[in-house]
């Protein structure tokens, strides 16, 4: 029975293990960063989308991919100190 009672807590614990998961204290900057990173990862992962974007940008696919990867580092600029 105690497992049942703990299930919620365990679920939360599990969720917190993932970088993108948030909590009540997540700031706009943190959330924005994870949104952007997830987006880039998703663009890279879906080849048709990547193809489309590189076509519009008139870049090679590999370079677009590299750009996305590079942008994942501090995607929303440095953290604000507030």
């Amino acid at each position, binding site marked *: 029975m105690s497992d*049942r009672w703990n299930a919620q807590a365990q679920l939360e614990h*599990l*969720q917190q293990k*993932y970088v993108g998961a*948030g909590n009540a204290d997540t700031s706009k900057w943190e959330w924005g960063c994870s949104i952007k990173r997830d*987006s880039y990862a998703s663009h890279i*992962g879906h080849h048709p989308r990547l193809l489309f974007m590189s076509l519009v940008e008139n870049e090679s696919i590999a370079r677009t991919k590299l750009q996305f990867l590079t942008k994942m580092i501090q995607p*929303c600029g440095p953290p604000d100190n507030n």
Partner: protein
Amino acid sequence: MNTNYHSRHFSSRDDEYSSKKRNRDYSSERSGGRADGRSRTYGDILKEQREENERAEYLRKIKREKNDKIRSSDDNSSRKYSDHDSTTVHSESRRWSEDPEKKDPQLEGAPEPTETSNSVYSSITPKNLQMLRLSKELQERNRHLTDTELDEILPSDGYEIVKPPESYKPQTTTKNNPLLSGVNFYNIPEDLTKPYDVPGDTTGTMPQIKPEDLAYFGMLLKEVDFDSLSYEEQKERRIAELLLKIKNGNPIIRKQALRQITEKARELGPSQLFSQILPLMMSVTLEDHERHLLVKVIDRILYKLDDLVRPYVHKILIIIEPMLTDEDYYARVEAREIISSLSKAAGLPTMIATMRPDIDNVDENVRNTTARAFAVVASALGVPALLPFLKAVCASKKSWIARHTGIKIVQQIAILLGCAILPHLKNLVEIIQVNINDEQPKVRTVTALAVAALAEAAYPYGIEAFDCVLRPLWEGINCHQGRYLAAFLKAMGFIIPLMDAEHAGTCTRKIMTTVIREFDAPEEEMKRIVLKVLKQCVSTEGVTATNVKEMIMNDFFRCFWIRRIALDKKSAKQIVETTVEIANKVGGGEVISRIVDHLKDESEPYRKTVLETIEKIVINLGVADIGSKIEEKLMDGMLFAFQEHTNDDSSGIINGFGTIVNALGSRCKVSIPYICGTIQWRLNNKSPRVRMQAADLVSKIAPVMKTCGEDMLMGRMGVVLFECLGEEYPEVLGSVLGALKDIVNSIGMTKMTPPIKDLLPRLTPILKNRHDKVQENVIELIGRIADRGAEYVSAKEWMRICFDLLDLLKAHKKAVRRATINTFGFIAKAIGPHDVLGTLLNNLKVQERQNRVCTTVAIAIVAEICGPFTVIPALMNEYRVPEINVQNGVLKSFSFMFEYIGEMSKDYVYAITPLLEDALVDRDLVHRQTACAAIKHLSLGVAGLGCEDALTHLLNFVWPNIFETSPHVINSVIDALDGLRIALGVGRIFTYVIQGLFHSARRVRDVYWRVYNLLYLGNQDGLVLVYPRLSEDKASPYNRTELELFL
């Protein structure tokens, strides 16, 4: 191994060898890597160790001269863990037991133990103590009434006190007490039997102190002013309190204390903590579960203390290491866990520095456990980190003992890590390869064993790594004898399966002469290794059937298929495996013909082994190559074995019989009448066990009788079994019902004798039987009849059975409840759902929860089998009953129903929506909870089927419930949201979530983020397209311009 294996105290399981762990000195300092002022340096330790070794060597020499004769007559009983090191163990154990300087270690460990408690408790075992406490209590309860007590009970006038007659002698209890016989040395004092209350405990949360723990928790008995104590004393007392709560408290108290001690671990400090925990761990009176709790404490505080534990690594290891060789599996696992977290906290250098001196310890026990501990360290920190150290140890020039331990570490790593050693295989083999030619025979042996362990772990890869050891192994096999040879053979036996076919063939031929020579070896160990090697060799591709026939078979059957081999379970298992492997190579008929005669042997275990072997061969290879002569012998032998079987556990024999007879199929037509005759006769035997075996056998051979076309005979068996239904032993009755079920299955409903219409009424009263086995079998039989032959019984009879079945819905065994529910389904299908449904809906009104739950499941099953449209109107009508239990039952039925009918639900979504709406706005929590569960299954069932409008509507009702706090409700709400996410897509739910993610109230944010995380984990990719545009800051670019690209 040990007779008192199941003792609650792990200390009482120890034999002489493992009890030596208590003799280790853990009070002296050995700080790894940290040479602060008060601790001894690394050099000091090594020096001491050397001196100790020399002293031991010297003493051993003296002893050897003295005891030469005694030892030669000694058997090697304590060789269990010692890895052929018996001489060391023996001489030492004798020396230790006679050494007057050696003090009882538990006396040293206890902090200021009181005189009485120790002298008393060191001399009795925990088991005795338990018995003494029991007998004391018994005496206390049965004590004589005193005169004053009698005066109070009896009126003063009319009674006279009579003098006892001269001849009367009062019985002295202690002498005749059976519990106390054998413990004649000790009379337990009054105050030692009662647990102590902790004074000054106003809250009542302090558990009582057991007398044997007095030495550790004695300080709590002194009433002191907590504030007057110094800081250190306060801490000490605090720790003692917490430990006492953990050790003796009830679960709630224990959990709190455990949490406190974990949280405050750094504040309380490692020195104080360990100085109290460690002596407690070494206590002889510690029970298994208490040790488990203390291990848990250590594990938790290790995480907290992290690098602060470094100075205590050695102390902890001394206590934990012996648990690595404990008989109890969980003790071993716990020990591994602790050592692994210890090595992560303290780091590799500390671990090596701490354990290094132990690898050439004089005591074999210490070395053995150290090797195991090193293996755990390797698995925790990675094998590569440990390789340089292992290399150095295995090449140690100074002492062969160190080399021995080093190789043992490699062996243990292989055993512990399994196939995970593959990346490091080459390195590990290279490290130990030189030792295979070591000058010390013991080192050579252990090297061979380590190679064997590595090869076993690496199977079927990595033969290249072993190239370098093949030659030395061959040489070893050719020149060694006895147990050295056994080790080398074992190594070769494990390497051969890794080789390619051609090589393996050559090697097997080469090794076989030696193996065959050793067939006759008297030692059990050698026999087992030979069997193992034989099995490995025979199974390789390169060995041909003719090879095996010519070289091995004759000797093998002559030497191993003897009565004695079946007496030992381990050997019996090995012989079965090896023989099956040989049969795989040369064909089943050949092997079976050689052992079939043994089925008539007079030794029961031997017959069982033979039958087990034949069964396995038949499963693997069928019976195509068994000649008619052998077949006859086989049937004959099996019947003999069956009839002569006297042991209680007959499942092996009966299963074997069944498998073989089924494999033979129509070929045993001739024997069937004979078998049936035997069974029929035995069904009337006066011993219940015989009757049960006979009935069990009927279920096994029923399918074969059908194949043989013996319908007449089957019918007769049916009648005989039918007559046995009056059986009084439930076990037997269960088997009889099982046999009837299998006969009905095979013969079919139409041909069954007695006819179904006679059989079923006879079964109805048996439904009232409370025995699990009977219930399960009778319900399955009835279910089978309802499924296939319902028309033979009147609808009225089926209704009657329905009522009886309701009772079975609350059976203890899940299989029974499951079978009952299925039977409801079959009956409903047979007589139409309405009557059954009526019964079930009425049952929703009962008080008992489990009964109601099972009823809801049964309703759902009826819905699944007879179509939801037959049930849903009645259910919806029932929901109008203004009674909580009924309404919840209806909702639960819907929940189960949607789970079972899946996609079919799409036709009923709109019909059911108003009901679910109503449930979701009910005040009762359980209404909402169950409705959520129903919505979860509903949405999962109709996902992608175009019911989004209804589901969105329902989502609007579910959504406010996310703020519920009751665990069941919130779980079910979250589940419903998860289901709706699948059906509606993550975007739709996200539009709800985004409203509250940055709400000003934290409690709102908390909940919304939890739901967000749920979406995020469930469908992160889908969220990318629905994230909002965040407003731009000066510094931070939040826009995702890539999504605005357009061609």
